[in-house]
């Protein structure tokens, strides 16, 4: 295959990758996007084989390796439970990082194969590129491993910080640059190895100070790193597909982590430089947030509800305080437009006066036939996809069913926990009228939406 032809195909594969990411922008096109990605990958691999044009023993061995790796990957993909997704992605990242390191090593050991000069006299630019690629790859690898361990729970999720951490990281970073400089000057392989090893260390150091809650951001950041590593290697190999993809993945990953930080209301730099801000926060919040809660935003809520077939709204005193009834009505209207079945479940003592919720819902013109009392609707929770609990607390507290010591024992409660997912809109984890904690906040199928009920509902309307 001529160089021009293969370059063209690599370009096509790069474009397919762009289309893949583009497809992911909406649920409707997302699967198509994935197919684009697969097509791009197939083309890239096929073109590589054709360009090398060697279909002898080596080719067969490569194929075998490919299949072995592929089977392992497929096996993992099918077996992994959906809940383990974040750690899986982290694990996969580590592989890409390591692969980048290996390719860089191979290129360093045998530059002729890549047209980069000969051992001991590798082209300057290529040397820089490959050592950068190796370094970033190594950081990605070890960083992802740490992230994986933290998410898997093998390592504690708590941030590990020590004095001088940032100075050490800075020092190591500079050291790597200095080493690259010397590598270029001397072409000594020991320096190359040193770079790789130090980079592994940096990866570890970068991730350990970051807390478990920030892991999604970190994963996305590592994703970005792996992209830059690929781009570096791409420059070494003068391969357009690698450059395009690397830059694409690199920048998209970085932006994604930025977007995620914004969504979680965290400072990007605090997260990425792990531990900068952590030290101050720790002291105050550790004792309270013992039990982990899942924290969502309006988009998550909108997504969940849009794709539900039935939603039950559970209003409480917080809805009244926030005067969220009108926004709530709007949200329900929007959901109904999406074909979702929505009903309201009114607990007999929700709010602070008998019929409190009824007054407000009537004000917002909610039709009476969508409003159900506890006894009418309590059985429906088990068939419903999402319970949207807005400013209610005590009236959902399952402790009333289980703990005779509890002050609310014996009160009938709404069985919201039986629905597939529960969204709790409230401002904090603080208790309601009865002053007792609600176990539901910490359940697996609960997503907490911490915000004023009206604001959150309005935002959900926007996202719908």
């Amino acid at each position, binding site marked *: 295959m001529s160089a021009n032809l293969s370059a063209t195909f690599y370009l096509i594969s790069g474009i397919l990758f762009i289309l893949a990411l583009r497809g992911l922008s909406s649920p409707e096109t997302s699967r198509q996007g994935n197919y684009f990605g697969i097509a791009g990958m197939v083309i890239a691999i096929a073109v590589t084989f054709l360009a090398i044009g060697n279909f002898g023993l080596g080719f067969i061995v490569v194929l075998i390796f490919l299949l072995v790796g592929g089977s392992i990957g497929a096996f993992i993909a099918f077996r992994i439970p959906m809940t383990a997704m974040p750690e899986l992605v982290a694990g996969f990242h580590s592989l890409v990082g390591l692969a980048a390191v290996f390719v860089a090593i191979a290129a360093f050991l045998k530059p002729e194969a890549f047209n980069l000069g000969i051992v001991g006299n590798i082209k300057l630019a290529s040397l820089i590129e490959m050592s950068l690629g190796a370094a970033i790859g190594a950081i990605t690898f070890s960083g992802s491993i740490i992230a994986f361990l933290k998410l898997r729970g093998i390592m504690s999720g708590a941030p590990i910080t020590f004095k001088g951490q940032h100075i050490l990281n800075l020092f190591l970073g500079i050291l790597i640059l200095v080493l690259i400089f010397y590598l270029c000057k001397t072409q000594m392989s020991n320096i190359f190895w040193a770079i790789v090893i130090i980079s592994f260390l940096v990866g570890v150091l970068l991730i350990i100070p970051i807390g478990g809650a920030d892991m999604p951001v970190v994963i996305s950041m590592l994703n970005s790193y792996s992209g830059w590593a690929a781009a570096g290697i791409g420059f070494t190999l003068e391969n357009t597909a690698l450059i395009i993809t690397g830059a694409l993945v690199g920048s998209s990953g970085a932006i994604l982590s930025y977007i995620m930080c914004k969504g979680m209301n965290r400072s990007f730099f605090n997260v990425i430089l792990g531990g900068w801000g952590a030290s101050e926060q720790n002291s105050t919040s550790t004792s309270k947030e013992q039990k982990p809660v899942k924290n969502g935003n309006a988009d998550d809520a909108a997504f969940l509800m849009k794709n539900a077939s039935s939603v039950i709204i559970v209003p409480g005193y917080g809805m009244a305080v926030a005067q969220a009834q009108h926004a709530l009505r709007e949200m329900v209207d929007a959901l109904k437009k999406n074909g979702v079945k929505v009903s309201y479940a*009114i607990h007999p003592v929700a709010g602070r006066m*008998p*019929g409190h919720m*009824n*007054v407000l819902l*009537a004000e917002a013109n909610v039709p009476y036939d969508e409003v159900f009392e*506890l006894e009418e609707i309590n059985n429906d929770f088990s068939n419903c996809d999402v319970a949207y609990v807005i400013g209610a607390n005590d009236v959902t507290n399952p402790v009333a069913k289980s703990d005779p010591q509890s002050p609310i024992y014996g009160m009938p409660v709404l069985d919201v926990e039986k629905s597939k997912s529960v969204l709790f809109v409230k401002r904090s984890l603080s208790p309601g009228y009865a002053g007792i904690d609600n176990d539901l906040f910490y359940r697996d199928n609960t997503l907490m939406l911490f915000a004023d009920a009206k604001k959150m509902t309005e935002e959900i309307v926007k996202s719908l």
Partner: protein
Amino acid sequence: MIIGSVSEDIKVEKRVALTPEILKKYKTLGLKICISKGYASHIGFSDSEYQNEGVEVLNNKEEVILKSNILIQMGIPSNDDLKLLKENQTLIGVLNPYNNEEKLKNLISKKVNCFSLDLLPRITRAQSMDILSSQANLAGYKAVVDSFSIFEKAIPMMMTAAGTISAAKVLVVGAGVAGLQAIATAKRMGAIVYATDVRMASKEQVESLGGKFLTVEGADNLETEGGYAKEASIEFKKKQEDLLKETLKKIDVIICTALIPGKKAPVIIKKDMIEEMQSGSIIYDLAASQGGNAEFTKPNEVVDYNGVKIVGEKNILNKLPVSSSNLYSKNVFNFINNLYDKEKKQIDLNFEDEIIDKTNVRFNGN
């Protein structure tokens, strides 16, 4: 020019044609005003409130009538008072010419100008003088408040620890001005509101207030050009009856407001329908003075039929005299404002003006 107004017979009419609110406006027209003593004290407006605005309070009605160029009233004055009126004086009020033909003919023969505001054409320009609208509106409101106060159950839905009170169901018969306000008020209180009317346009209007319209299928649009209702065909009435009979089983409160101008009010809620209703239900009939929309309606009486209370209210606005007087005086002022020629400082009987022409009481074309 002097505007005068004398006390009404407060046993039948508590509203007045002049409230303190409007006095300033008359002043800006340069008109003087006199009233009789204790004119509106029964509704909380003391004579001094009037005097503060420069109104002359005279000791008796005669003085007022003799002194004023224009006499403004709510209803038609008593015969004694009417006798005092003489040539070129003007009488403005709700004179109800069909019922008071005798008296009015008498006045006209004396060359007293009589303007009856119930004859006002329903044109856009006359809206600000439209006493039918302003009073019907309040009547619709009050009918709901009153009937809810009589009703022995709570109106809105309340889900409480001691069980659920379901929302009351209200039916409004006739969705004109009064009916629409009744719908709005009942809706506000949390009732489920149904309404029925013969004019098609009212469906959208009812729905614009959150009410449910009971559409009589295959109905023609029984609307006159003036926006009033025509009498319905027998076939229509039959269909309406069937629909209502079914609906009434679950209705708690009925507010009746259906009228046909110049005719007896249509009887819409029949005996057999009332028999289907739950004991404790209320029928509040605002059409009582025109005969009533319900079969057993008696003006100014509460009839109990099998536990259903049928309230026939003849002049409901006596229960809301302050608000209704305020609006009425504003209507009258707007009317005078149109009638009065500021340059010539006298009234201008310009019969080219549809408003003046139509409200002027004449019989047999004179």
